[in-house]
């Protein structure tokens, strides 16, 4: 199993291939379009993340101490962000997720081109993923 830091570094390397924000944006859109849609039954108000201007749904399941996330959004760009976050945080232990610093977000230059509302949304998604992890931590005590 690759560590969170290792995956982050791979993503940073991927993004290093792009010179411009335009290319990065299009790449995130591409990733977003590849994200498997969430089944309608999971698109509930309970699973909706507060603080995102776009609608974002997120669920998590645990199997043998390993967490898996599934998510969807009405924004392709946000789906791209989620896909990146899931690449890093899915299939990790609750501890690893809780402690993740996620420096890659700044390093790939994601945050610097977002409106405040969208940056807040990103922060809210990360917070929700960590809250799920905290929940599973306690379950395993």
């Amino acid at each position, binding site marked *: 199993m690759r560590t969170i830091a290792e995956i982050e570094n791979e993503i940073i390397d991927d993004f290093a291939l792009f010179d411009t924000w335009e290319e990065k944006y299009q790449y995130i859109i591409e990733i977003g*379009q590849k994200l498997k849609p969430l089944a309608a039954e999971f698109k509930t108000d309970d699973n909706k993340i507060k603080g995102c201007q776009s609608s974002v749904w997120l669920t998590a399941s645990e199997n043998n101490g390993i967490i898996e996330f599934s998510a969807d959004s*009405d924004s*392709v760009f946000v789906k791209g962000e989620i896909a990146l976050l899931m690449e890093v945080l899915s299939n990790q232990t609750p501890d690893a997720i809780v402690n993740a610093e996620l420096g890659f977000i700044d390093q790939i230059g994601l945050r610097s081109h977002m409106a405040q509302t969208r940056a807040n949304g990103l922060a809210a998604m990360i917070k929700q993923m960590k809250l799920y992890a905290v929940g599973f931590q306690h379950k395993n005590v």
Partner: protein
Amino acid sequence: MELTSVKSTFDVTAIRKDFPVLSEMPYGKPLVYFDNAATSQKPQVVIDALVNYYSHYNANVHRGVHFLSQKASDAFDAVREKVRSFINAATEREIIFVRGTTEGVNLVAATYGRKNIQQGDTILVSAMEHHSNIVPWQMLCEEKGARLNVIPMNEKGELVLDSLEDLLNDNCKFVAVTHTANSLGTINPIKEIIAKAHSKNIPVLVDGAQAVAHDEVDVQDLDCDFFVFSAHKMLGPTGIGAVYGKLSLLEEMPPYHGGGEMIKSVSFKGTTWNEVPYKFEAGTPNIADVIAMGAAIDYWYSFDRAAAHQQEIDLLNYCTSKLADIPSVRIIGTAKNKAAVISFVIDKANAMDVGMFLDTKGIAVRTGQHCAEPVMDWFGIPGTIRASFMFYNTLEEVDYFIEQLKKAIQLLAV
């Protein structure tokens, strides 16, 4: 009608040279600035006015015997007359300097409103107000036990005045309505609303934030009781704007903030107020920005305003017709009488995704609720993409915008 062939006598190429920001190249691409309803760009003369003030005669005003203070006071005082003339107030004493539209509405609510609104009264706003012309009245209603009523609108984003007579009933003590809606572009029949309100002796505040940048405003002709606007939307600096109020009303109003300049005499036993408009202007004013606002007003008189206005109408009509050709585009706000603001949504595409795409191409539009959440709720949408024009925009920019918008739709609406 072949709209591409519209030729205006207005020399937009020359005008654009007056605005340094228009030469910016975000991401190496020429800037297409279609976010003018949020804030306009500034001509060089406005920037120069600031530099000139701070480099040559910065001083506190009114209280000083010395050369710099005199020069600063003269320049500052001259702007009140310029603002008066810009909106044709009867006297410059009717002009109060404030931070902008928002502070202006709050000033009227805190002075006229607090004094005159009582429990059980209603205040009437419209369905298409900016938050700045809703929330101050909600807060006042909350404080006084009064109630907010709303002039409804139709699916075109036009006010429906059928119920106006009813709404202007005996309980109604104040009307606050926007001249031009920033979220929809609708230009409201303000004069008619004012006349109807006045026939029941109800005073009217007009939110002129969008109007002053696009139309010539004559407060005496409108006969409004208050008119508020921000300099930053009409080529002036941030941090300054004005409240116009009829002198007879201003005279009767309690003061706003307490402090220096707004008093005649202070003692611990009691204090007497200065005259209108100083009664409403406590503390050191925003001297530099008042002076720069004066430079912006001078600039408005330096070109052919009618031609500039026609340029905006051309931009509006041209862009509207181009958008109408794109099947997935739905324009929100299709009033007959519109300013150069186009709000729209795209089937299946998220507005902010589109905004970000356009941004990567150097195009600045706004996406979201435009501080008009009730309008979005009315239309049942989370937000719109808004392109808002100023006379310095070009039809070529619209072409480029449409071209890139089509690409965005191809990529994002799937």
